[in-house]
């Protein structure tokens, strides 16, 4: 099992890239900060891409559902044998894994499953409300963000080294088992905030 420290040291070698490389925001401190503020620092969670690990997720994740009846929105159910898997780490730490098809965008997947991802501009890369933090293990397997995605990421709240826009990231075999966290955008106020315990 890869531990958090492994993740950091694995990534830290490619942290600083020159100005022209496209990935500009880099320092070990900011990366550690990013990790601290993402939900990946749960040491009990494995970050594997291996099929066994997916089964592990299936058994771990409270609300995993292997039936596809909950699909709505514009998603097509995956063809048998071609299912890909994605896990969302929600703002409260709960994880949800879904079977999806190649080409589905993370925004479409999240919205089809009523996850808290706004997509204010309807997926046209013009608002940054679909911000996700990608598990560092998968970030290099994703195609680099285009300029317009980076322009919007500039404005994303709680930006991290592995932040992406959910409307621009599409599922593919290369990222089978992908894990992304929804950043805690809003402070959750509840009655508890006002009571003494």
């Amino acid at each position, binding site marked *: 099992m890869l531990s958090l420290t492994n993740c950091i040291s694995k990534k830290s070698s490619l942290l600083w890239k020159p*100005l*022209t490389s*496209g990935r*500009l*925001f880099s320092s070990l401190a900011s990366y550690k900060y990013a990790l601290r503020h993402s939900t990946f620092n749960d040491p009990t969670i494995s970050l594997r891409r291996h099929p066994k690990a997916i089964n592990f997720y299936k058994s771990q994740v409270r609300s995993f559902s292997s039936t596809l009846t909950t699909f709505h929105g514009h998603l097509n159910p995956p063809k048998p044998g071609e299912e890909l898997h994605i896990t969302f780490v929600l703002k409260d730490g709960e994880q949800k894994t879904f079977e999806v098809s190649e080409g589905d965008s993370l925004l479409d997947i999240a919205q089809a499953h009523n996850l808290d991802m*706004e997509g*204010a*501009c*309807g997926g*046209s*890369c*013009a*608002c*940054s*409300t679909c911000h996700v933090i990608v598990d560092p293990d998968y970030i290099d397997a994703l195609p680099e963000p*285009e*300029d*317009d995605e*980076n*322009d*919007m990421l*500039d*404005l*994303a*709240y709680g*930006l991290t080294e592995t932040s992406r826009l959910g409307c621009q990231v599409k599922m593919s075999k290369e990222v089978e088992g992908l894990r992304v966290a929804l950043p805690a*955008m*809003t*402070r*959750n*106020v*509840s*009655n508890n*905030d*006002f009571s003494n315990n």
Partner: protein
Amino acid sequence: MMPNFLRSLSTTCNNRDIQRKTISIVGSGPSGFYTAYRLLSKSKIPIKVTLWEKLPVPFGLSRYGVAPDHPEVKNCEETFTSIANEYQKDNGLHDFQFIGNRTIGKDIPLKDLIEKQDAVILSYGCMGDKKLNIPGEKDTNGVFSSRQFVNWYNGHPEYSTSKVFSNFDWSRIKNVGIIGNGNVALDIARVLLSNNIGELWDKTDISPLAMKCLNQAPIKNVKIIARRDFVHSKFTNKELRELWELERYGIFGSISKKYFQLGNLNISNLSRPMKRTAEMCYEYLKPFNERTKKSYKKYQPLVNVGETQRKTWELDYLKTPTSIKRDSNGNITALELFENNITEDNRVIPMKDHVINYDMDLLITSLGYEAKPMDEFKELGIQFEHGHIANVEGRVQNQEGIIVPGLYTAGWVKHGSKGVIAATMMDAFNVADGILADLETFPSKPSVEQDISFLADNKVEKVSWSDWESLNNYELLQGTNQGKVRAKVLTVPEMLAHKHQKPSY
């Protein structure tokens, strides 16, 4: 009007006897609508939301601020529409109504809302202009604030037919100055510079009255003048990129070496967005063939344009406007400025012995919109300071700094005119979460009315959501007929007249 006792009788019989907590939201821009959305989608207790809007049309700056060539930004309106449609049926846990063409604080006292509702949210945005307060700003022809100019080209009913714009002689406008370098300044620069590029505007919902005027202007140069230095530029990269990309039409940008040289910047200290801004400017200032990344070579620049067609824009820095010069007809001729120094701690020091003049025919002050208190605030003891409603995380404070129970604020009137729609949304969500926590805890006031739409029965037409939908369909249809996304109805009387005719489509 229905007597009080009958009204309360009828509300308990309707609504399938659900007694809901009542919430009024003042202003239907992104902050008002996102607050409504969050309340309706998260509340576990039954609520009734009434969304009040001064204009006969909803959506605030999504409709009247966001540039016409950025239709994708307006997609948030789809979310707003879907919640209005979903919750106004009055047959579920919650209920929603939209009441347009009513200005709270004028047509209906805010005091009445506070008295008759469990919660009131002030989300009425920024309805004024920040000012330079320099001689000539108020009374010189050809000096406009960004809010006036944007409202005019976006067809806002208070400006769309304004004589100040239609009687202005656009045919002599060559040199333009814009003060401030926020995104609004860049929107305005783009509109002015590309005034004759039909393919950018013909399909948009830009006001045809404004476009006709703008088409006449032989614009040569737009100077975007900031008081601080390059690294404190306020625009964001998407907007800046759009300006650079206008080179494909023969519209070229520049920045004096005095203000921008990559070698002089301490790159490692810059924020991620500013690093990207610096890279973008460095690359676009190079000749096309010498650029390193393909993204800066997306469009071939139109180099062989005739002198008359070639236009330029310039990012200018470290200047404080001091006075506006004009001719005997009262038309602007020049702007006088001081050059500035900037201190380590980001303070601007104008150098009074470094005076310069820029000749110009049009000046737009794009300093930000200004929030205004309602007249009633004094009487109600509501604190308004530093350009916004005093509040603690959206809970409004009185003049002693104490929180006024049941009164909240969200969006631009809460914190001044900053933040893109995503930021406005997050702010609205936070405020709504606070309201829900309070509502679950606090008992209902005895003076609360389940349905307060009767407050709007006092004068001319109020506009319901279905009235708006019918106007919306009309605008969309007119748009389709004219080959555009939408053709906005430009005046309030026409909007209201349409409500009566309700033609069948």
